[in-house]
């Protein structure tokens, strides 16, 4: 009997494939394709305390093997989420991870406090958002800044707390260690890479914000390396993210030390991608006589 289930910080996932934040909305669009209960879990679109409209101008730009996005946390706000999306998600029999963003520590803390009282299973703290108080530099760049926000959030957080790391961190291993010291129960990585594109005819950046976030298979080798390094350095569960497009990719992350994976941009080009990955992992385990994920987790 093959067991793809995995327990992360006390939360039981029926399989290790989770929809990545910002690529799955609140699940509704995908439920046209398949029952969401098939997924290990869903990480919601990044939520902020207040509703946000997101960025102006071009929001999506294709690159070789990936895409740059500058959505800018368009979301209904925590209250809108609780009112309009959560009741629907609750019924789906899958793990609900609330992905939380913010521009100040207070904003993060308040958002988490509101979520404490809801049925979500886990919080994923997105520390890649620009920190308005520190002039736009993301919380996720310097280990000390991250320590600050994570420890403040941890003080109030009543749900298992996953911190989502940015690959733009100065040192991904120090960052991970710092977040764990600050109280993170688990880590997920990576978020998008800071990237850029220029419209040479207009002689202007493609994005109003100049810099946008790179995702997709193009980033996979770097993301995998980071997951590998972090998994050797910390003792909390890790969720691997970055360019996962098939079961082989997912298994690479698991062998590098990930307890579960998140699939992001891949959902856009194939809404069934997570199901195919789940099936692929199962067949691989069957073929290779692997009974549980723990037998291959971190073997590399």
């Amino acid at each position: 009997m093959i067991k793809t289930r995995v327990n992360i910080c006390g939360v039981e996932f029926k399989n290790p494939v989770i929809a990545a934040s910002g690529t799955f909305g609140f699940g509704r669009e995908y439920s046209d394709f398949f029952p969401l209960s098939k997924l290990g879990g869903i990480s919601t679109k990044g939520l902020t305390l207040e509703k946000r409209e997101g960025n102006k101008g071009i929001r999506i730009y294709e690159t070789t093997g990936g895409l740059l996005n500058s959505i800018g946390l368009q979301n209904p706000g925590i209250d809108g989420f609780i009112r309009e999306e959560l009741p629907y998600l609750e019924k789906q029999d899958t793990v609900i991870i609330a992905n939380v963003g913010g521009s100040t520590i207070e904003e993060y803390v308040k958002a988490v406090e509101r979520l404490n009282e809801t049925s979500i299973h886990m919080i994923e703290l997105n520390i890649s958002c620009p920190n308005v108080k520190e002039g736009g530099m993301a919380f996720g760049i310097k280990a000390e800044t991250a320590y600050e926000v994570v420890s403040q959030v941890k003080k109030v957080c009543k749900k298992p707390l996953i911190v989502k790391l940015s690959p733009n961190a100065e040192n991904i291993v120090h960052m991970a260690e710092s977040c764990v010291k600050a109280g993170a129960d688990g880590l997920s990585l990576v978020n998008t890479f800071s990237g850029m594109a220029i419209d040479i005819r207009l002689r202007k950046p493609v994005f109003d914000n100049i810099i946008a976030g790179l995702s997709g298979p193009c980033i996979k080798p770097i993301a995998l390396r980071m997951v590998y390094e972090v998994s050797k350095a910390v003792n909390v569960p890790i969720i691997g993210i970055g360019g996962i497009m098939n079961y082989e990719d997912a298994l690479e992350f698991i062998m590098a030390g990930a307890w579960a994976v998140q699939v992001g941009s891949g959902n856009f080009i194939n809404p069934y991608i997570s199901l195919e990955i789940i099936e692929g992992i199962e067949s691989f385990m069957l073929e290779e006589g692997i009974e549980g994920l723990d037998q291959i987790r971190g073997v590399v």
Partner: protein
Amino acid sequence: MKGYRRTTVKSNVEIATNIYEMKISYPYAFLGCPGQFYMLKGWKAMDPFLARPISIADVEENTLSFLYEVRGKGTYLMSKLREGDSLELLGPLGKGFDTNVKGNIAIVAGGIGIAPMIYLLKSLNSRVDFYCGFRDQAYYIDKIKEYAKDIFISTESGSLGHKGFITDIFKAEKYNVVFTCGPLPMMKKVWDLCKGKKVYMSMENRMACGFGACLGCSIQTKDGMKRVCKEGPVFSGEEVFFCD
């Protein structure tokens, strides 16, 4: 909905410079309306990474037609498909035109904006005036003539019809309902000429998913951010040009 389906190219013909009409076999129950679109992927690997949104141009028994202009890498690769090649597509997607309208109706199309309009024209129960503007070469004219009450053509080069823009000769006052698709400035002009009337316009934006998940295609509307792929691509004039 099914995910991406693999089908086969029946024909793919350049009907004017850089303008192709592609027919594909579609042996599935077809439930699409005019103004809806498909995400098309005419390549087997991950470059281009994203599929491309293309409107339904026409529907026949077991066949879908697309009309497209070669603009960049994706449409270039599409143009290289030959009979028997395979193609993946997802759809029909989005909210199409409201065909349940009454009164005097006009369609105003600019350039490749003509793509979703033939199927619309065929689907409207009343006879419709069709205005189409081109840069130089006109296409699909015969097909339009078959179904339209009257056809008005303009070309910027003057090679056919009125020399100039289609909005120069568009008689807004004659109509109660106007459907338009084309470059944004053209649609804006139509809207300006039509204040007070029902104007439906098909919008474009870069898309990653095409089914509402990425928020990449959102535009500002009167009622907040709306996704072109889900709440659109057809919007009313008021929704889009609310700032005026």
